[in-house]
């Protein structure tokens, strides 16, 4: 494979550069701008595949910003100087999600976002959002993580409020408040680390970690902040408003953005603290977050009449599965059972992250296609759309079956891993998880029935081609993952799970030894 050591920096730098060239190209020609943005997103996708392949076969990749030789970290008295990017299996895995969703969202947006309403700025923010997500998952520096978290939050806020309706502005404002509170928590935790260890590099802090009282406070702050950002119950209140009012392509991106926060949560729990902390307690806390999110999310989704609000509550519910799977892994960390089924639970949770980004992204995009043609998100005003919007309804069926965990789609593969592994810990966990799946299916049957079935009520056309193409990207991934789950788990998901567990490999890549 053609691999260049500069790829990690290019992946973050290219969308930033492109974001600010886009308004300049926009002056020349609208078509050239669209082609430019799509080309950049396609290059990003290609580069992340190259990088991920390299990481999955050869292990952790290090990139030191501004150094003569970026693959060597300059150490001075056990302090890594300069900002280091550290891409292990988990980071590469999250990067794959971000780039794929961004590409689908970019293609979808060409027709979805109407001209003449600051569209150049829309693409600028979209590219900055991608750069923020990639920076967050690639960085090996805690303060850098905070900076990218802020970049991501601010770009997301601008995009949520893009439609400028009163409720969109309200959604953006809620997101802004939650993001800022979470970011301040993170900053405070970073200050606690810096005061004690004089370090900002994640690997170096993990190496020097004493687990003092202050570190416990920092852990509580970080877990609360990232759980808030990923929309876990009881900090989920921002998600329905922001997800339902943002343009559909942006909602798909927001799902991926929430999962970047989920990544940060796992990185803190596994790499920064790992076996030092009371992982039983933290594991149980994350399992409880997960169970609450799953159950409350799905019960709130059932009575919704707004299609995107309903899907937003399902997003909360699905986040619960990831927290449950990885929480069980954390709970069993270090015990002899870990290698038997703890790692399976983690694989299930991590596999669910990518599955969820794909099918929930697809579902939000189909909801956006309905909104584009009908101008409403209210399920009561829909009906009979299956007569004309054939492709959209097929995409919706695929997404709905995947989210409900019906074989042969990808949701089934990850949910089965979670059910089986959690059953060994406590059968109650699996029972709740299955019940939530059944309720999810019920809820999506309701949506399908009221939106697509019935007599022809509206004289609407099929969604534009670019929107169908955007949805096709995600559908392809869903079907591929559904048909070859074994290959995906052993080649992509297992290295990601092992990257989280093998804390010393992450530390040694920077600190040597």
């Amino acid at each position, binding site marked *: 494979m053609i691999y260049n050591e500069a790829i990690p920096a290019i992946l973050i730098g290219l969308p930033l550069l492109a974001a600010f060239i886009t308004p300049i190209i926009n002056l020349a020609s609208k078509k050239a701008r669209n082609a430019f943005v799509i080309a950049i997103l396609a290059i990003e996708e290609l580069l992340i595949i190259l990088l991920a392949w390299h990481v999955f076969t050869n292990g952790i990749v290090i990139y030191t910003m*501004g*150094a003569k030789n*970026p693959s060597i970290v300059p150490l001075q008295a056990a302090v890594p100087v300069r900002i280091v990017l550290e891409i292990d299996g988990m980071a590469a895995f999250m990067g794959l999600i971000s780039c794929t969703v961004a590409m689908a969202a970019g293609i979808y947006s060409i027709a979805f976002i109407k001209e003449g309403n600051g569209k150049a700025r829309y693409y600028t923010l979209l590219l900055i959002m991608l750069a923020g997500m990639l920076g967050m998952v690639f960085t090996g520096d805690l303060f850098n993580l905070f900076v990218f978290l802020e970049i991501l939050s601010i770009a997301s806020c601008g995009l949520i409020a893009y439609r400028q309706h009163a409720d969109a502005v309200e959604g953006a404002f809620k997101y802004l408040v939650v993001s800022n509170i979470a970011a301040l928590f993170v900053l405070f935790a970073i200050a606690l680390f810096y005061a004690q260890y004089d370090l900002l590099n994640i690997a170096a802090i993990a190496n020097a970690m004493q687990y003092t009282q202050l570190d416990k406070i920092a852990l509580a702050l970080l877990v609360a902040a990232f759980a808030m950002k990923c929309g876990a119950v009881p900090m989920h209140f921002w998600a329905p408003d922001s997800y339902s009012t943002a343009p559909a392509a942006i909602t798909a991106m927001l799902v991926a953005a929430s999962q970047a926060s989920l990544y940060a949560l796992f990185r803190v729990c596994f790499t920064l603290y790992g076996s030092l902390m009371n992982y039983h307690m933290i594991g149980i806390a994350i399992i409880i977050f997960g169970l609450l999110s799953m159950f409350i999310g799905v019960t709130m989704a059932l009575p919704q009449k707004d299609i995107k609000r309903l899907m937003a509550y399902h997003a909360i519910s699905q986040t619960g599965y990831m927290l449950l799977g990885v929480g069980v892994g954390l709970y069993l960390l270090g015990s002899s059972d870990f290698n038997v089924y703890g790692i399976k639970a983690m694989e299930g949770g991590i596999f669910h992250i990518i599955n969820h980004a794909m099918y929930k992204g697809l579902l939000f995009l189909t909801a956006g296609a309905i909104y584009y043609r009908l101008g409403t998100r209210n399920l009561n005003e829909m009906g009979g759309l299956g007569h004309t919007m054939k492709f959209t309804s097929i995409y919706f069926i695929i997404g709905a079956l995947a989210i409900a965990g019906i074989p042969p789609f990808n949701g089934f593969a990850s949910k089965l891993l979670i059910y089986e592994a959690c059953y060994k810990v406590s059968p109650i966990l699996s029972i709740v998880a299955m019940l939530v799946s059944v309720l999810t299916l019920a809820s999506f049957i309701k949506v399908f029935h009221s939106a697509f079935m019935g007599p022809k009520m509206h004289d609407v056309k099929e969604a534009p081609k670019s929107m169908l193409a955007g949805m096709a990207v995600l559908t392809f991934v869903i079907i591929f993952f559904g048909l070859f789950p074994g290959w995906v788990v052993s080649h992509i998901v297992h290295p990601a799970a092992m990257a989280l567990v093998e804390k010393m490999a992450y530390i040694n890549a920077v600190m040597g030894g």
Partner: protein
Amino acid sequence: MNDETNDGRMSIIVRTIATMLLPFVLIFSFYVIMHGHLTPGGGFQGGAIAASAIVMMIAAYGHKMMGKRVSEDGLSMAESIGAAIFAIVAFIGVIMAASFMYNFLVGTPLFGETPPFGGNPGILNSGGILPILNIAVGMKVIGGLAAVVMIMALAGDERGDEK
């Protein structure tokens, strides 16, 4: 002062003093940007000073007058170009087979001097790519902050609605 008859302008005294101060504020802004690698301040702070000069002119002359003189598109363009320069400078390091943000100007005639060890009055011609990055950030902040101020000043007018 701020009634409809005089278009939101302030008195002749304020307008005269603001006009006289303008070049000094801009020179100070340029000084802060250019000495970013030597003294406190830098691209952001210098850019904010220049944007505050625009705020001063809006306060003195009213937003209608300033809206005719300064175009938001121009400001947005300055912002985009500033940010693009920053990213391009960072990428030159990659092209030179070193790394992203590699300081490739060290040792060259342009900002390449190495300052002597110990106390010195500050050598302007040092810092490598830092002064260039400061200028890029300065452009971005002037464009960004001034555009924000202009949009807020024009909000409610028919021009402010669309953008």
